[in-house]
């Protein structure tokens, strides 16, 4: 086998031209494109991390706000419940006082009414007793009895 020096040189030059052209037309743009892509991915990752971090912060903040709101709501509810309970107790106390006063007044009125009726009844009974005694004496005393009574009264006079 014969070695053709010119052919080797030609092939070498040809290889060099191809290498140059490939480097110029293909490798550099591809590398540049890959670098740009890597850069974009990196930027995207950074942005994503930043967003994630911001989202986490936001979430944390949201949770804090929510917790605070819940705490405030619980406080308001507690205060409102306490106030309502206080008002209910006051209303109940007032109602009880009023009922007790009315009951006492009714009791007093009833006692007064009973006492009045009792007095009236006693008076009626006394009048009835005297009237009955009078009627009975008038109808039962004979002339002889009356004479005896008159004599007895006269005997007691001093």
């Amino acid at each position: 086998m014969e070695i053709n020096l010119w052919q080797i040189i030609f092939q070498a030059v040809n290889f060099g031209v191809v290498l140059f052209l490939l480097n110029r037309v293909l490798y550099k743009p591809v590398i540049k494109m890959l670098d740009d892509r890597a850069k974009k991915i990196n930027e995207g990752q950074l942005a994503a991390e930043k967003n994630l971090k911001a989202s986490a912060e936001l979430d944390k903040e949201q949770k804090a706000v929510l917790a605070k709101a819940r705490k405030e709501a619980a406080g308001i509810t507690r205060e409102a419940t306490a106030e309502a309970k206080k008002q209910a107790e006051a209303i109940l106390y007032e109602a009880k006082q009023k009922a007790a006063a009315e009951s006492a007044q009714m009791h007093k009125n009833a006692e007064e009414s009973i006492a009045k009726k009792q007095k009236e009844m006693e008076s009626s009974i006394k009048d009835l007793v005297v009237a009955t005694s009078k009627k009975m004496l008038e109808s039962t005393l004979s002339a002889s009895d009356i004479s005896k009574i008159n004599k007895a009264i006269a005997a007691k006079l001093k």
Partner: protein
Amino acid sequence: MTTKSIALIRTSSKLDASTLKLVNKHLTSLSKQNLSIEQVVDPSLIAGFVIEVGGKEYDYSIKGSLAKLQAQLS
């Protein structure tokens, strides 16, 4: 001439002599003088009598006693 004072006796029925004598004795000791007794029958007295003498009234009747009893009970 002296005039006797009059004692008015209201009775449920006319007093008999012995009763009248007792009453007269009482009135004499009460007024320190002899009195002329005048009787008036009042059946509403039931029994006993009421003496009116010297502007005063002495009630010894059953009616009066009942009235006193009623006053005490009221």
